[in-house]
């Protein structure tokens, strides 16, 4: 195993290279991923390395792409479909939810769908209302799918490799603002980060900040600021929404007795509400304050930077929620 410093983008790319080299049935398909090198450059160089048909440029037709990948997966291929942004996966909801996610159940186990749908999810920079969705909570609602949203390069690498080897359809969300984030990655063919394991990325005794994807970084920033005034916040990186590791979350809450759940998706009805409800159901007696929630504003994402930044939760929003919890 070689520990290498790389960006989140490079970690995702390295995971795909590893898995394609390991298994000839793994292939990539998506819009502009080949000759154009990927809109976010995640697949840069892969077309030259693996050629058509293993790096397949597709028409801009998400339902067709996901449907074709699902059929191919049912007979043993292991497609990785790149969504140019997860917002575009909305077009393919019927194929994802009503086809891919149902195959194993409706066939009573006769067939399975080893499919990965990956791409950037969440607000980037002034992409406005139609390109800024956080879709992971929508998918985590659906039995039959697995949904992960890693926050760090090493997790992106290890979890994407796990996703490719999984026999079930996996939604793999990358946040567009994380692509340039650097971290140490243990590059090794068999380095796998399992699903369903949350990770305490900062220890603290006063309050649990629970988040995934980019919001983990926002929580770490808030925790830093709180530490300066003597408040020790613990940060739990959920990593995997479905399956969800409630035990690690509960253990943290039982230590700190306070919790704030932070997510970029619209605050109302988002996945953070699910986490908050579970803490309320199962840790009521451990809590010294109601579970707080910080989510995106319940508006379509506006274009102007000042308005966009207003919508996306930041460290100050998290700190305000910590105050509301009595600290």
């Amino acid at each position: 195993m070689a520990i290498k410093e790389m960006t989140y983008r490079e970690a995702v790319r390295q995971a795909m290279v590893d898995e394609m080299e390991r298994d000839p049935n793994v292939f990539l398909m998506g819009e502009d991923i080949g000759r154009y090198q990927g809109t976010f450059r995640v697949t840069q160089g892969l077309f030259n390395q693996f050629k058509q048909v293993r790096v397949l440029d597709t028409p801009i037709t998400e339902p067709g792409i996901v449907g074709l990948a699902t059929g191919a997966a049912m007979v043993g291929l292991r497609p990785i479909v790149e969504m140019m942004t997860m917002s575009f996966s909305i077009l393919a909801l019927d194929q994802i939810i009503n086809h891919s996610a149902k195959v194993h159940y409706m066939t009573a186990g006769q067939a399975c769908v080893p499919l990965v749908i990956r791409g950037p999810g969440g607000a980037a920079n002034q992409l406005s209302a139609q390109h800024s969705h956080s879709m992971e909570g929508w998918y985590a609602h659906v039995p039959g799918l697995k949904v992960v949203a890693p926050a760090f390069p090493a997790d992106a690498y290890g979890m994407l490799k796990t996703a490719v080897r999984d026999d079930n359809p996996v939604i793999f969300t990358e946040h567009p603002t994380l692509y340039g984030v650097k971290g140490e990655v243990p590059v090794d063919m068999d380095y796998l980060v399992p699903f369903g394991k949350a990770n305490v990325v900062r220890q603290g005794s006063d309050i649990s900040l629970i988040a995934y994807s980019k919001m983990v970084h926002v929580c770490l920033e808030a925790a830093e600021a709180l530490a300066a005034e003597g408040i020790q916040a613990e940060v739990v990186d959920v990593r995997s929404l479905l399956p969800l590791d409630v035990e690690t979350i509960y253990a943290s809450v039982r230590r700190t007795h306070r919790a704030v759940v932070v997510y970029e998706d619209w605050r109302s009805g988002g996945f953070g509400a699910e986490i908050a409800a579970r803490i309320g159901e199962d840790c009521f007696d451990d809590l010294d304050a109601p579970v707080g929630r910080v989510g995106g504003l319940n508006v379509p994402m506006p274009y102007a930077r000042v308005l966009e930044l207003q919508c996306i939760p930041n460290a100050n929003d998290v700190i305000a929620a910590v105050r509301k919890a009595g600290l």
Partner: protein
Amino acid sequence: MGAGGIAARRFRGDMAQPAELTIEESPAELEELYRQMLFIRHFEEKCNQVYRMGKAGGYLHVYIGMEATAVGWLSMLRKDDYVITAYRDHAQALLMGNDPVAVMAEIMGRRGGTSKGKGGSMHLYDIPHNFFGGWGIVGGHIPLGAGLSFASKYKGEDRVTLNFLGDGASNAGVFYETLNMAGLWDLPCIFLIENNEFAMGTRLEYHAANVELHRKGYPFGIRHERMDGMDVLAVRKAARRIIDYVRNEQRPYLVEVMNYRFAGHGAADNDQSLYRTPDEVEAAKARDPIKLLENVILAQRVLTPEQIEAIHSDIEDQVQEIYEKADAMPFPDPEEVYDNVYTDMEVEKGH
């Protein structure tokens, strides 16, 4: 094609007249084709009865009147070819080798069903025999079928995928998306539009801007044609030619098979007068695919009327026995509700 033929009536002049058919099938093959169509007819009639008895629920769509299409095409495939269809799937499920008791049991929601009671009439599968269902969203399965053919091409196999869809599904956006990919990547996939002239209760001329649906292959560089789907021998002849082309050339094909469903859209479709007249149904029934083959069999003296009579009662008995065996099977256990959501993980239990 007979003067009373439904396709002739509605599309006179724009369909190629079938050439004089030389019968290539042996007497044994003719009898087998006859038995297959008759079996489907009786099986489907039993399904309707089962539904009326309250022993099947949900949506149930029978293949009555369309038998020559599935029997003709599937009899020309190789065992390793792939087949996928929508929700009018009983015939394909039976012909691809499923145990008919398991099919009936699935329709009746029993544990012994093909999907252990999880799928029902619309979701029949037989993956070991290369039958991939059994899908309920109009048009939704079409790209899956292209994916099957993509996979066989990717692996360097020479399988053909037979991708059934209805005339209604040929309007779905994902159909055009799939045709584009199939044309672009030369997928060995046969898109087979079963044009039974109705998208549920809406007639062809009220749902399609161009009622010659096969022409939808043209913009994608896909060879296309319309053919009769009532004469099983003509169906087989055309099917052999098209399957050979797709297998050898590794290119797609779009074929519009003109047939007619004698039954309603689904078992719950109880007022067909809303979309068709008794005269029209009667005209279509003059070209009943079973009757057409029976005429050939009698004319060729393959079977006597008495032998045909005996086959009828034999198949009726078979279907009755299948029904009784299925009806004797238990329903699923409540705990089974959690099985097969994932390949490798349990789901959370309880409400």
